[in-house]
């Protein structure tokens, strides 16, 4: 009995030590690959930044009207945003490469799943980017028009419209990647409907008198005004 137990324990210990011996070099390889990847990514980022700054890429982008597309990035610098993107793509690729040290088939499985998921992910990212851009543009248009119409709560109106578009874009993006479809539809319906209803109530009931007073005042002033701008 004791002999059997000892034999089983020895075999387990052997297996563990064998696994550790197999695992340690792989871990070392992963660390080395990731370290090299980070170094390469950093070099690529620095080189890209240097080249683009030499080309006055930020200034040229502004002149060509592309500057506004990079306003979402913290630094608002197109060259920095592109350099950061390149850096993270290299780190991601290096990480996938490093995983082959443990299991050569793991990366191909991961890559296969990733490529199956990629179109939806890309579409969702595109929807988010376009949605953000459209939300900013429409929000700003509403703000300017409301100010020119002398609506006191112009900023509130603009923020409301901007978030409506953002919520819609977010919901469409999540729908695309298949996250919480049923809950999302329900939540979006409630949220969107709620916002529209709240706005309708605010204008239709809550501010009825205010709107009518303001309208009357504006009409009175318009009638009195004899000023010709042209």
């Amino acid at each position, binding site marked *: 009995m004791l002999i059997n137990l000892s034999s089983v324990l020895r075999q387990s210990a052997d297996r563990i030590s064998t696994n550790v011996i197999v695992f340690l070099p792989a871990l070392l390889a992963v660390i080395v690959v990731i370290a090299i990847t980070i170094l390469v990514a950093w070099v690529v980022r620095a080189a890209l930044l240097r080249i683009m700054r030499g080309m006055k890429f930020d200034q040229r982008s502004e*002149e060509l009207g592309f500057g506004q597309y990079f306003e979402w990035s913290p630094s608002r610098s197109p060259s920095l945003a592109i350099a950061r993107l390149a850096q993270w793509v290299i780190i991601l690729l290096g990480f996938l490469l490093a995983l082959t040290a443990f299991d050569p088939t793991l990366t191909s499985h991961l890559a296969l799943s990733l490529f199956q998921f990629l179109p939806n992910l890309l579409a969702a990212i595109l929807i988010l980017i376009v949605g953000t851009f459209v939300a900013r543009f429409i929000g700003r248009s509403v703000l*300017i028009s409301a*100010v*020119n119409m*002398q609506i006191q709560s112009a900023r509130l109106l603009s923020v409301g419209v901007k978030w409506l578009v953002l919520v819609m874009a977010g919901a469409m993006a999540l729908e695309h990647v298949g996250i919480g479809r049923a809950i999302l539809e329900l939540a979006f319906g409630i949220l969107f409907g709620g916002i529209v209803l709240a706005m309708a109530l605010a204008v239709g009931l809550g501010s009825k008198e205010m709107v009518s007073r303001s309208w009357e005042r504006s009409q009175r*002033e318009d009638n009195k005004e004899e*000023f010709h701008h042209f």
Partner: protein
Amino acid sequence: MPDSAELLKPEKNQTVRIEQAEIVFGVLSFNNAGSIGSVLAAVRDTLNGRFAGVPSAILHADSGSSDGTVEIVRESSGDGPPLLVVHEFLRHADRVAVPYHGLPGMSSAVRTILETARTAGAHACAVVDGGRTTVTPDGIEWLVRPVIEQGIDFVAPYYQRHKYDGALTRGIVYPLLRCLYGRRIRQPIGADFGFSRTMMDGLLAQKGWDQDQERFATDVWMTTVAASGNYRIAEAVLGAHIRDSHEAAPELSTALSQITGSVFSEMDARVQVWQRMRTSERVPLLGSYKGDSTQPVNVNVRRMTESFRLGYQDLRDLWSKVLPPASIIHLKRMAAQTDQTFHFDDDLWARILFDFAVAYRLRVIAREHLLGSLTPLYLGWVASYVRDVELATAAEAERRMEHLCGTFESLKPYLISRWRWPERAGQ
């Protein structure tokens, strides 16, 4: 010249053709049933009485009136030159996008009139606003007489107006065009102009006819072409500027965007011309000038200052992308002023317009946003101007305008510097 009036109606897409004419008058209209009869009568009287014996023709270009304007023209009769009615000159773009200032399709109408006049071999051509109720033979004679007798190429209108009227012209278009192109054309916004053969050729050779900004502000654009070219220019006194009262007033913000957009767009296209120009010269004023209107005009200054303050409160962040910090600090101080002490410095106003022109060129923000955000600033300037000239005589108001234009001209090096080195803003 035929003995009696002819009435022709060309079919769709048919080329308008007049055999031969020395003078061609084009009358523009859009729902002007109330005034078109008297305008046509004035044009006929001018041609019959003051240019008798000179082969001439009248072209009526209507932009799709639905109030019977065209029928009134068809039924109108009178001795004199042939009258040609054109309806189908509007291009698709004119029907889709109606300008908020001026006549719809004015660009196509003027182009058709100029092409017709050139084909007929005319030496002088004039366009007249069919919606103006104050058109007289005395006034419109001056649109063509200087062209025939003095070799003038372009006659711009000079309406006798109240010191408050035409604030957009006084505050933006006149000072900007004067400082840019060096010609003092007081009223570039209107629909009454005179052209020589050289000017017709020059205008018809331009590419701007089909471009949005130029199509929306044809009057400003044509004046810019004349002022920036080597043309002889004069102004004709045309009397008061009173239009058919049935027309709704154009929406200020959109019209302001279209007009300033046209000026800024031409700045980019004519940079070689305006950067060389250092001073400005007067242009001769022709006709009998009887002084500006002194009828009292109601102006709601409080509403304008409120609009400025609301603009500062909500559009400050947007303006910060366009204007240097010093200007924003100035605007902040102004927003804190009371209505009684509210004042907009000419220096600040000129710098703001120059900075907007540079931002328009560089597309710092979307152009429609940029031009839209100018309205509260403009209303702030108007409020300040109205307060300044409230008790002023016509001569004092004129001196006020001279001061403004002088400021624009003295700050032109700032504009050139910002244009050439935009990254140095705020230094």
